[in-house]
């Protein structure tokens, strides 16, 4: 563990460790990005979707005549029409099926029922309101508990023989060993908590512009996609189109956070419409459509237990989850793992046994379960253990920092095999927590807390010391819909020494155009400004699984380092030829080969020129290679966050008065970009803890369908963060880097909640749990000792 890494390259070259400005920001801050809705094709038509106003109902009939007669309307598409092409249903990323346009029933409010294609988006919207659907309303199921009650109406009666609402059942860990450990426990603490439904709500909503050429059958589909290659394959499989005729172009993406991983009905219908009409068809969601119908996140009802000794050691953990999947089981996750990577729930702690059971239920809510800035349910897992650990310390009368220190996996135990079978690559949890305690002045705040707040408010201090598992795969264990989770990089150095790097991942704001150029700069000494990074066009980039679950640097970044090293090997041969020396006598310093012990050398640019103008005999011309990287293991970023809050007992409001976040994501390629990711994540974590959720009324109406109800914090509410770092490199990643895109969204919510609970507990209110978001009325209810709803 160290806290700083000294760059090996000059600032001009800008390799690893340089906080260079993001290359992509020039166009973004000037409003010159090119997003899906900016693309205009000749003769383009516009599509609007007709959605179900009710949560559950049988479709009796659909009357499209008024819409069809509207001037400017070109076509009205229904599920029945899709069914004729066998496209009324499509597979989900979890191997379930999902209706493209409903034919039999609607199963959630906002479900796609028909689509109107018109010459103008206003006409399309007007005509969409003229499609009349006659529904026979059915009772709505709005919670998984309700869904699993005996006799509950079966939501998925489209599935033959389905008699209940169970979407999946899954377990991990060792039940026997866990039961045995619990039998020996002095104390057992439990926690029941709901991780509410939230939504990634990216700035740019989802959309598609499908352009099927009627002459050639070639389909160019512009798509708000975090995974264009995987989407192309799925399009080929679903629509039966030849894959070479499909080109997916993912233009600039205005934020994804997991929301742009699934394939949505709108994408499919726009493509079908273009195919049928022979014209480009654009579909762009409204904000409300995005919030009510596209991939939500979380919605986990969790029960957790820790077996403890009275002197404060954890012996074992039990967890059971009831997951609200919505109407279709559409979690974006590796196919072997029904509850994602939830079994990372043993977190940063060393104990012998754990057992996890999970059950997913169908409800009359939108499907999704995307990894909103989280590596496949790691967020829920981390939240559960960090809340449980705080409850344990409280029940045992121990300081929560001391309790953590006592139970952390020790540095010498790495690589560490967790009770559920993960092999943690590296870590130093004690140091990270100690650094965070220093940064926030933990002892100082505890003193102030004991002294009491000058205005009668309540101080609380909360900790979360998370461990994540990110960077899927290895390909033995990890695949999505059968496609293995490797990723790729293709690098070409042009004669003038400038490079183009093409990747299978897809940035949505993470700064790939800079970070990956810096990796090339590090490995080859070519200034990062001379490296163009290209992603998103399937005709133009190597195959890859895309960007989500913090996998781009662990997998695509590793591929970049490896391909650059391969090119350096070839460059060395050319250098030897140019220097008339043996390869063995050459040494490398960033950007230059030289003959050992002399000042004779050639730059990488000179080598590149020679690769095209003067290659050595017997060596292929050019300086280009491709790497498909299959990581040997996941990476395990970690960190400690400490939040200090002030609670107003008069109205239940709380505000963050201090916060320190120490992250360890291994080697930081661009420290500024890493800190940006962390600040964004801490903000999103705060949003979830403080204000943000999607809920439903008893009829299944979505509450949270626009930014009036679904709250996104502004700069005003967002706490000020003190950031710190430790660096424990990943031993298996070529650069020692780990993923960091999600650390703070994963780690921080528990710290905020623990802080509020700490404030209440130390003021004498014995509160076990407040569900997120920790809304003022819930805090007030906890102080009054009354249960409040919602």
């Amino acid at each position, binding site marked *: 563990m160290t806290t700083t890494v000294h760059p090996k390259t000059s600032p001009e070259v800008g390799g690893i460790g340089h906080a260079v400005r993001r290359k992509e920001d020039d166009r973004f801050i000037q409003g010159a990005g090119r997003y899906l809705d900016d693309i205009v094709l000749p003769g383009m038509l516009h599509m609007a979707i007709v959605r179900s106003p009710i949560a559950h109902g049988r479709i009796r009939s659909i009357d499209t005549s008024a819409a069809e007669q509207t001037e400017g309307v070109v076509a009205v598409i229904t599920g029945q029409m899709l069914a004729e092409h066998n496209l009324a249903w499509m597979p989900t990323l979890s191997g379930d099926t999902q209706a493209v346009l409903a034919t039999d029933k609607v199963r959630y409010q906002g479900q796609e029922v028909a689509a109107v294609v018109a010459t103008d988006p206003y006409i399309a919207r007007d005509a969409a309101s003229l499609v009349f659907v006659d529904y026979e309303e059915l009772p709505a199921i709005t919670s998984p508990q309700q869904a699993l009650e005996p006799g509950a109406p079966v939501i998925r009666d489209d599935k033959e023989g389905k008699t209940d609402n169970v979407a999946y059942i899954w377990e991990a860990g060792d039940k026997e060993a866990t039961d045995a450990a619990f039998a020996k426990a002095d104390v057992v603490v439990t926690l029941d908590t709901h991780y509410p439904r939230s939504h990634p709500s990216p700035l740019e909503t989802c959309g598609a512009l499908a352009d099927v050429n009627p002459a050639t059958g070639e389909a160019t589909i512009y798509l708000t996609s975090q995974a264009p290659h995987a989407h192309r394959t799925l399009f080929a499989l679903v629509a039966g189109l030849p894959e070479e005729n499909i080109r997916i172009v993912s233009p600039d993406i205005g934020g994804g956070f997991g929301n742009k991983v699934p394939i949505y009905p709108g994408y499919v219908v726009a493509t079908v419409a273009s195919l049928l009409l022979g014209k480009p068809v654009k579909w762009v969601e409204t904000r409300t459509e995005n919030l009510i119908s596209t991939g939500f996140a979380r919605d986990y009802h969790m029960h957790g237990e820790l077996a403890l000794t009275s002197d404060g050691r954890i012996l074992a953990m039990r967890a059971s989850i009831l997951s609200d999947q919505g109407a279709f089981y559409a979690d974006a996750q590796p196919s072997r793992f029904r509850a994602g990577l939830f079994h990372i729930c043993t977190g940063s702690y060393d104990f012998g046994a754990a057992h996890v059971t999970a059950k997913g239920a169908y409800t009359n809510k939108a499907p999704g379960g995307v990894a909103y800035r989280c590596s496949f349910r790691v967020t829920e897992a981390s939240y559960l253990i960090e809340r449980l650990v705080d409850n344990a310390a409280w029940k045992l009368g121990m300081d929560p920092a001391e309790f953590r220190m006592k139970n952390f996996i020790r540095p010498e135990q790495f690589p560490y095999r967790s009770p559920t079978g993960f092999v943690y690559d590296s870590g130093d949890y004690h140091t990270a927590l100690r650094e965070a305690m220093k940064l926030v002045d933990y002892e100082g705040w505890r003193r102030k807390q004991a002294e009491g707040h000058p205005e009668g408010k309540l101080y609380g201090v909360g900790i979360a010391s998370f461990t994540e598992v990110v960077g899927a795969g290895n390909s033995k264990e990890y695949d999505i819909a059968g496609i293995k989770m490797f990723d790729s990089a293709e690098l070409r150095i042009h004669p003038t020494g400038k490079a183009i790097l093409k990747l299978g991942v897809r940035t949505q704001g993470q700064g790939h155009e800079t970070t990956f150029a810096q990796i090339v700069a590090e490995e080859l000494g070519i200034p990062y400004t001379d490296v163009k990074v290209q992603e998103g066009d399937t005709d133009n980039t190597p195959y890859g699984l895309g960007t989500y679950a913090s996998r781009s640097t662990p997998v695509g970044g590793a591929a970049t380092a490896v391909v650059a090293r391969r090119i350096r090997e070839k460059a060395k041969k050319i250098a030897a030829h140019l220097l008339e020396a043996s390869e063995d006598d050459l040494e490398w310093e960033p950007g230059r080969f030289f003959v050992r012990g002399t000042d004779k050398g050639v730059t990488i640019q000179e080598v590149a020129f020679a690769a095209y103008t003067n290659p050595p005999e017997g060596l292929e011309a050019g300086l280009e290679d491709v790497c498909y990287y299959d990581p040997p293991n996941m990476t395990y970023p970690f960190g400690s966050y400490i939040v200090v809050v002030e609670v107003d007992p008069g109205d239940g409001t709380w505000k963050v008065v201090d916060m320190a976040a120490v992250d360890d994501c291994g080697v930081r390629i661009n420290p500024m970009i890493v800190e940006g990711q962390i600040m964004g994540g801490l903000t999103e974590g705060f949003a979830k803890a403080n204000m943000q959720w999607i809920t439903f009324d008893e009829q299944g109406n979505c509450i949270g369908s626009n930014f009036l109800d679904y709250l996104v914090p502004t700069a*005003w509410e967002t706490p000020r963060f003190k950031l710190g770092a430790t660096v424990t490199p990943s031993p298996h990643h070529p650069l020692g880097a780990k993923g960091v895109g999600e650390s703070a969204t994963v780690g921080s919510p528990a710290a905020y909640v623990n802080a509020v609970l700490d404030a209440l507990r130390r003021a004498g209110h014995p509160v076990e749990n407040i569900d997120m978001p920790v809304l003022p009325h819930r805090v007030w209810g906890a102080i009054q000792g009354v249960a409040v709803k919602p």
Partner: protein
Amino acid sequence: MYPPRFEYSAPRSLEEALDLLAEVGDEGRVLAGGQSLLPMMKLRLAAPAHLVDINRLPGLGSITDTNGEISIGALVRHADVATDPTVAAHAPLLAAAAPWIADPLVRNRGTLCGSVAHCDPEGDWNSLMLAVGATVVATSREGTRTIPIADFVVDFFTNALRPGEMVTEVRVPKAGPRTGGAYLKLERKIGDYATVGVATHLRLDESGRIAQAGIALTSVAPKNLKVTEAEELLVGNEPSDELFAEAAEVAARTCQPTSDVRGPAEYKRAVVRTYTERGLRRALAEARGEA
């Protein structure tokens, strides 16, 4: 977000605007800052056939000091109220409350008069207007009339304007000596409507007794609610913590909150009580020159 089709006129004089309003009648709507009307149209919750944009009308954008009253024209934006020196000097409660309306973007466009006319029970301005006792000036082709705010705010999104009338200004009595006020608003984030808002206003007489009191509530009834019973309880009395607690109790009893995602009714009642008490204490401190 695509609103339904509508007609649009942008008259250049008040006369022209009033003629248009008279012509289009019920089908028409005044467009001021557009910060409530346009979102409703985009969500297709409102579909007026004709918008009469008043933004080009001359003379409606000023704040003036007219004997004893501050006049706020129909095109004065929330942001103007927050920064105007006349408001700061003579209606400090309004200046202090303005930054609690929406967010800076909305404040730059939205108008105080539009907010008053809109009669959204979650709007903040009408509570302040009720607490200080403002007057609304309504104008039509037939002429001009003044309407006390308590009569103007009729019900849920319903004002006392007649067809063809528009609000041209709102008049607020100048805060004289020994006055103080507070607007306490519970919101989930900046730009959110109030979960609960409480406007309090006090004027003391020379002996230190309460000569005038205003209490009005946001978001806890079908309209902004003037708590007359609590006001009457205060007037003529020596201010004290006990008296304020009693008034707060009346406010909590009088309000009619509903349970929703912002919290259950009993919670909102509790906040009304807390904020009324806190607000009165702050108003008193200000009136006594202690704040």
